[in-house]
């Protein structure tokens, strides 16, 4: 079972893992660097998916959970689709490696700015319940 108390700490580190893996894979472009980067990605994606699902279900009111999950999916995917379209446009003018790293840095900064609010709400709810 996912450790409910340690989860927020790992969740905060998720984009840094992704950024590190991106830099390793793009800068070296060898089979071994790709595998190392992929391992780091795998761990980061695990905490991203399980963390989002767990934190999302805990902090959302029961009556709104379906709507918030669906809204989250629409919003997140659409924003990333727009970024993806932008990516294909920009790589016509810039090297794709530079573009990938720049977008990853942007994502990491965004995570640092926004992650405290949901994690605080999650930790408060876990504390108020005592234990699950």
């Amino acid at each position: 079972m996912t450790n409910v108390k340690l989860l927020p700490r790992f969740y905060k580190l998720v984009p840094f893992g992704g950024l590190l893996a991106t830099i390793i894979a793009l800068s070296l472009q060898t089979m071994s660097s790709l595998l190392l980067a992929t391992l780091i990605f795998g761990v980061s994606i695990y905490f991203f998916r399980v963390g989002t699902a767990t934190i999302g279900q805990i902090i959302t009111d029961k009556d709104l959970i379906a709507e918030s999950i669906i809204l989250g999916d629409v919003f997140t995917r659409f924003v990333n689709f727009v970024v993806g379209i932008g990516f294909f446009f920009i790589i016509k003018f810039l090297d794709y490696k530079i573009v990938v790293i720049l977008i990853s840095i942007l994502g990491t900064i965004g995570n640092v700015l926004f992650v405290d609010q949901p994690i605080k709400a999650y930790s408060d709810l876990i504390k108020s319940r005592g234990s699950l």
Partner: protein
Amino acid sequence: MASIYKWLNNKKRLSIYLTTFSNFSKAVVLYFATIFLYKIDNSGASSGFLVLLGLLAVSLSGMIAPFLIIHFKGFKLGILLSMVSLVAEFLFFIFYQQKIPLYCCIVVINLIQGIESANYNYELVDIFENDVEDQIQSNNGYHILLQTFTLIAPILGYLLVNYCIVLASCVVVLFLQLVALIAWFILKKYEPLNKSNVDIPKYPFKNYLLAIKNKNVVFLNLVRSANGFVFNTWEIAAPMVIMAIAENQAQLSSKIQTTYETTLSIAFILSGAFLG
């Protein structure tokens, strides 16, 4: 052995887990498409474009999903989506050699996958209404199982693309989808009774407005988007990196793609086993 028997004997949880076969079959189809596109575009951009189409389709599915979930009440929707998936996957194997029909099939398959994902989250909350611990455990198990299939899908896809005829691939994919369909039929028995009395809201967007006003939900979605920048951009660029490592050889790139996908899944599963 006793714990495995106990796990298998929990039909409710087992059925939930078996619905992941639907994702498994779709993962094989997506992998099949990725490898096929490596053969016709040696820059890797066409394969990367599939990731982008996936994002668009899942985004669209979020707009359609609420309407479908309200009108088909979840469990019926699971059955319906599995049936539509069977047809879409069958059509994919008929038209896969033409680029535009291939992209269209991939959009439809991703669209269904997005609705299934929303539907799964909706049903799980209802089934484990008063048992948060069971809910979290099932959630964890469901995601690990999904990733396990993501681990097997590239290997299966690679074998199917390189060593089998398309007919065999089609049969394997449709069989997996059929298992998911049967699982949804079993799962329907556990549908909470009070769900059938749910009224269709007069103003369907009222709850969405309430969700938007929830500060925690808004910030969590901003975090998801920010993390998505990191992960999705990498996923789009990965085929280009793989092609660069393979020095534009389609056969070698398909091997590297398989290794990459498998390693990613192993890392995910090990994280769940040791760090979770």
